[in-house]
């Protein structure tokens, strides 16, 4: 367990040394400046416009930053043979993955809290709390998928492309499903096959389109049951992707 804690601490330190907080501050400044600009030009609902645009920008940026931090950090370790050095220790490979993931999970929590601070200026605290909790769940999934992509693909470009594809698909899958089902009756065999294929893809993706909803900041926050469901979904998906990453890592002949 000591190995896991040490590896997680090193991972967090490394992310901080990569000026993670500076990057987060830059995003916040840009977002607040944009929100202020919108406040000046909007005729009505200026607070809602500011909140919605800022929340959407912060959410997307947080996912992007987490993916970059994980991919760049693991790529450097892989290229410098640090991964092989760590795996040469008398510890199970699963502890290596666990240590890395816990480190990145701490980064996700830190980033979500930092990004929630400017939103507190515009929205009610209950909504901001729910949004932050949901963002943590979402970022944990992104971090787990990033770890999986790096361990499996081992190339920065292909890993980033895969993560971007996964994230965009997971955010838009419900809409794709609805469009696939809305074919004029009677549906042909091809229509039914397309709809079933869309359903099958949706089954193995997390429901990111329902998480971290901007409406919580503008209207009413979700109930505790909804947040618990998102936490369960996040835990389940992290377990799924983590097991897939371990499956691949155990099969590598390092």
């Amino acid at each position, binding site marked *: 367990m000591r190995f896991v804690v040490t590896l997680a601490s090193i991972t967090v330190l490394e992310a901080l040394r990569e000026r993670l907080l500076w990057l987060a501050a830059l995003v916040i400044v840009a977002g607040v400046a944009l929100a202020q600009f919108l406040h000046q030009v909007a005729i009505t609902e200026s607070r809602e416009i500011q909140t919605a645009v800022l929340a959407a920008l912060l959410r997307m940026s947080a996912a992007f930053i987490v993916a970059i931090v994980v991919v760049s950090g693991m790529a450097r370790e892989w290229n410098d043979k640090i991964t092989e050095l760590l795996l040469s220790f008398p510890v199970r490979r699963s502890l290596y993955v666990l240590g890395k993931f816990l480190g990145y999970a701490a980064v996700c929590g830190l980033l979500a809290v930092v990004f929630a601070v400017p939103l507190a200026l515009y929205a009610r605290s209950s909504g901001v709390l729910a949004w932050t909790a949901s963002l943590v769940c979402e970022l944990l999934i992104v971090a787990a998928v990033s770890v999986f992509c790096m361990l499996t693909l081992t190339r920065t470009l292909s890993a980033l492309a895969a993560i971007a594809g996964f994230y965009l698909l997971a955010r838009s899958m419900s809409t794709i499903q609805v469009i696939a089902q809305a074919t004029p009756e009677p549906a042909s065999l091809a229509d039914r096959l397309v709809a079933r294929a869309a359903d099958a893809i949706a*089954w193995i993706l997390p429901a990111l389109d329902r998480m971290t909803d901007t409406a919580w900041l503008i209207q009413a926050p979700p109930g505790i049951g909804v947040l618990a469901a998102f936490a369960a979904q996040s835990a389940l998906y992290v377990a799924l992707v983590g097991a897939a990453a371990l499956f691949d890592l155990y099969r590598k002949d390092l």
Partner: protein
Amino acid sequence: MRERPVSAVPRMVLATLAAALAGQIAIRASHPARAPHAEELASPPAAAVLRLASFGEPIALAKLLMLNLQAADYRAGDPLPYRDLDYGRVEAWLDRILELDPAGQYPLLAASRIYAEVPDPAKSRRMLEFVRRQFLADPDRRWPWLAHATIVAKHRLHDLPLALSLAETLERNVDPRSAPAWARHMRAFVLEDMNELEAARAVIGGYIDSGRLQDAQERRLLERHLQEIEARLAGGRPTR
């Protein structure tokens, strides 16, 4: 990189992978995606905002918006989809989509063949007027949808004055080289259905005498039809 056999993977990892996959599928399958309800269809943003959101790809955005609009209030297996939609909003969305992609035919197909065929005469008429308005912006490309609108007015709404008005709009505005004879001559057939045999005879006679009929087959067909009308007028047969 060489790979070790699957047996090198601990059973715990395999079991976790299988259990998590089953759980994930169960969770997602228990929350199927549903089409937005009619009341969830919001008003569209301004065309300028949509152009901004398209990042320089207005045609792609228009296609996606059309598919998204089609999914609103759609329920698989429901014989009467779209009946609860706010047609003001539907029309506004169709308008915006055509602004983004003026060459696109999908919005007018949807207006004349999907949204105009709901069992609500007021909504249906609204869509037919939308088709007429959009036809006037580009008659030579959009005439098929006004022709279909005429058929909907005649056979579905049984509103012959509206059908005649739509057919007149089509005839007056379309280039004869763009639309086939059957579409350009719809006015005469609607007049005949309205028992306006004198008017129908005058219109068909006008087509024949105009000298614009290039096709001999088309000319023969109209002449035969004119003879039938004249025979009905001369015989004083009861009108249909």
